[in-house]
């Protein structure tokens, strides 16, 4: 089976989308970006291929689709165990004969034991990334050993910080796909014959890459051949068009930058604007605010939505965010009212970029991490209504893949127009 892949190397996450010859989405994967771009891209692609295989398995299963879920959890656990092996090896190597060394095996052994529960039906996994999953368990165990057995917590934590970087940049740390999958099948309770057959059929299908395009914000070097790099603006425009074909205006607010893009009825970009070097009004600003308020990023929006009387915030300067916040709080303003004002201030910055790029045309698609924030969406909808009138506002739960999807479509439609095709 032939496929094309688009990879979007972002500032915090790397996404891959694969599509088949009919431009149908068949798989997608995400991982955290890291210092080694090649590994990040490879892992995102691996993840996309995994999701494609699971899609095939699902198609092969005549019934018993409810068994896919335990299979996938089992598969993730197998990957986790492989990654733990790598982590353990690296930790031991880093620790040498230091005092912390004696505790490492005990920690990792406990983590292996916990994995059954972690990936069980009730398991509480706050992230899909190994760095976060393993990190939270490792640190809590390290804390326990420090408390009960006199281990040095700082030393253990320091070892982890070093080791995880290396794990992340080790290709194949999660083991081979087929091995993990087969081990996972064996762990699924009950009669697994159907499932095993479906898995074997899916694994037997060869997935052949026939095209790839990479994109990513402001990277001087992307790990793709030069002819296969497309601007993220173009990818974003085409991706949004693919998700919502009537899209004419796209707003993307990510961690580092904000983009306003106008596209035509084919998804071709006709104009665009990006924020200037000042990062005010980007997602990162909300991150500062969350830190300042000791809240999780995802908690900001819902809290702001409770506001009855939003405060007007004039400055979205990240440098002053903390000071302004503290002053407002000390004046007795309510947290939710301040937050509502902050969300509006960020969206006002975006409104400027939209105006510069040519306004908000129907339909209007909002993407990026901030599109998940209900208070930001509310403020945007209101301001668009007030300034441009009725507009259909599209937000996809999968908007994080917009750029990668556009890249995959470019990959399918052939690489850049040949040089000299002018007029």
């Amino acid at each position, binding site marked *: 089976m032939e496929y094309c892949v688009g990879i979007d190397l972002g500032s915090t996450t790397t996404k891959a989308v694969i599509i088949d010859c009919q431009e149908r989405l068949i798989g997608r994967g995400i991982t955290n970006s890291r210092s080694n771009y090649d590994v990040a891209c490879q892992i995102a692609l691996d993840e996309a291929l995994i999701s494609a295989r699971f899609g095939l398995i699902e198609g092969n299963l005549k019934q018993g689709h409810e068994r896919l879920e335990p299979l996938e959890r089992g598969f993730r656990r197998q990957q986790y165990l492989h990654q733990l092996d790598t982590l353990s090896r690296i930790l031991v190597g880093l620790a040498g004969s230091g005092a912390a060394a004696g505790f490492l095996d005990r920690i990792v052994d406990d983590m292996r034991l916990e994995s059954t529960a972690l990936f069980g039906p009730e398991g509480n996994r706050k992230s899909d990334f190994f760095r976060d999953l393993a990190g939270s368990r490792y640190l809590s165990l390290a804390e326990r050993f420090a408390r009960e057995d006199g281990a040095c917590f700082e030393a253990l934590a320091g070892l982890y910080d070093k080791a995880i970087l290396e794990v992340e940049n080790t290709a194949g740390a999660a083991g081979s796909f087929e091995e993990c999958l087969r081990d996972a099948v064996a762990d699924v309770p009950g009669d697994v014959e159907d499932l095993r057959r479906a898995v074997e059929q899916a694994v037997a299908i060869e997935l052949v890459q026939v095209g790839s395009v990479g994109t990513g914000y402001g990277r001087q070097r992307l790990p793709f051949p030069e002819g296969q790099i497309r601007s993220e603006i173009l990818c974003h425009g085409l991706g949004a068009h693919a998700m919502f074909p009537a899209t004419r205006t796209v707003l993307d607010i990510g961690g580092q930058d904000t983009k306003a893009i106008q596209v035509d009825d084919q998804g071709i970009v006709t104009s665009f604007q990006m924020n200037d070097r000042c990062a005010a009004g980007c997602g990162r600003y909300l991150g500062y605010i969350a830190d300042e308020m000791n809240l999780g990023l995802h908690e900001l929006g819902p809290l702001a939505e409770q506001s009855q009387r939003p405060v007007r*915030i004039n400055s979205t300067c990240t440098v002053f965010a903390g000071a302004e916040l503290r002053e407002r709080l000390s004046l007795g303003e309510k947290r939710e009212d301040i937050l509502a004002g902050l969300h509006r201030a960020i969206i006002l910055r975006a409104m400027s970029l939209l105006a510069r790029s040519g306004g908000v045309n129907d339909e209007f698609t909002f993407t990026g991490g901030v599109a998940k924030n209900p208070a930001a969406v509310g403020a945007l909808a209101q301001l668009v209504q007030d300034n441009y009138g009725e507009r259909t506002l599209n937000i996809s739960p999968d908007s994080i893949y917009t750029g990668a999807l556009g890249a995959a479509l470019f990959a399918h439609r052939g690489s850049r127009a040949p040089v000299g095709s002018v007029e």
Partner: protein
Amino acid sequence: MIASSVSTLVERAEALCRDLRLQSVRDWKARTGGLAIGYLPVYVPRELLVAQGILPVGLMGAGADLEIIRGDAYYQSYICHLPRSTIEMGLDGSLDCLDGLLFPAICDVIRNLSGMWQMLFPDKYAHYLDLPQNFDRELGGRFYRDELETIARDLAARGASAPTPESLREAIVLYNENRAVVRSLYELRAAEPWKIPTWELYVVLRAGLVLPVTEHTTLLEAYREAALADTTRLPMDQARVVLTGSFCEQPPLGLLKTLERAGCYIVDDDFIQVLRWIRSDVPVEGDPLENLVNSLLDDAIASPTRYSDQDEVGGELVERVQRRQAEGVLFCAPSFCDPALLDQPMAVAAVERRGIPWTSFKYSENSGQFQVIREQAGTFADSIKLWSEA
């Protein structure tokens, strides 16, 4: 009873300052049928406009009250705030009662705004008023007179009356009266700053941007009388400072209050300079247009927007510090203000040569938080007091 009179006057003035839709101007136009012409900082010859039956309306930004929705789309992040709020007010209809705008020579941002205005509002009069930087009567004077005649002609073509020597003289008299009471308020504040808090002085002065000149003069006189009569305001141990750098984009009212609460008596400043650009009276006798021209050449205050042919650029600031018996200088400029910030190193050098204490900070007209400035100004005021005691 007297105190309530001060507060009534100040409340009225503050309401005028905060009325961004210029209701009082709309009322005036409905009443008189005259033209209203807006102008930006720092100086326009309002006498000429009044002599043509026009209401001059000063625009000095929207302060902290207006949410900028459209204006930011026109400017990069490194440009000051005043033109953003001016465009915002233009686009949201607040300024539709104005028949035109004059953009005096302040800096390149306001200069370019004149061209933007021409494109944004092609039906309105929008003129860049090139104030002369050469102060010879035969050179800059002649050019400036041509400028004034051009403006008078342009406005007459739009329905204003042509200025006559009589109407010009009348207007000069009215503005001389206004300048006199403004001067006396500055003197009074320098002598007894506890009686004239700067934020009050600021709003009663700023009301003059929208009021007809006689009404403004009356307001100022009433305020002066009421403030003098108020015996409840007593002197406090505060540092006497000259505030400089805020001649175009104005500081938010909250900043002025913050500075005074932090222990500073502002005994001189750069606010709303159009009222004081000409230092003394414009002569009434003789050719009135020539008198307006010559007053600008010979009798204008020093400003970073005006070329200085003096040897020491900060000399005039030093002179103000001495005349007002100030103990220090607050350099208080808007962010990204070219004239103020390019001038500042020279002015700082001049005060440093005399051992005058100074501190500096920047603001934007819509700054919402002053904690850092409060601490800075408080420390500065404390250090001055300690110093003077030592």
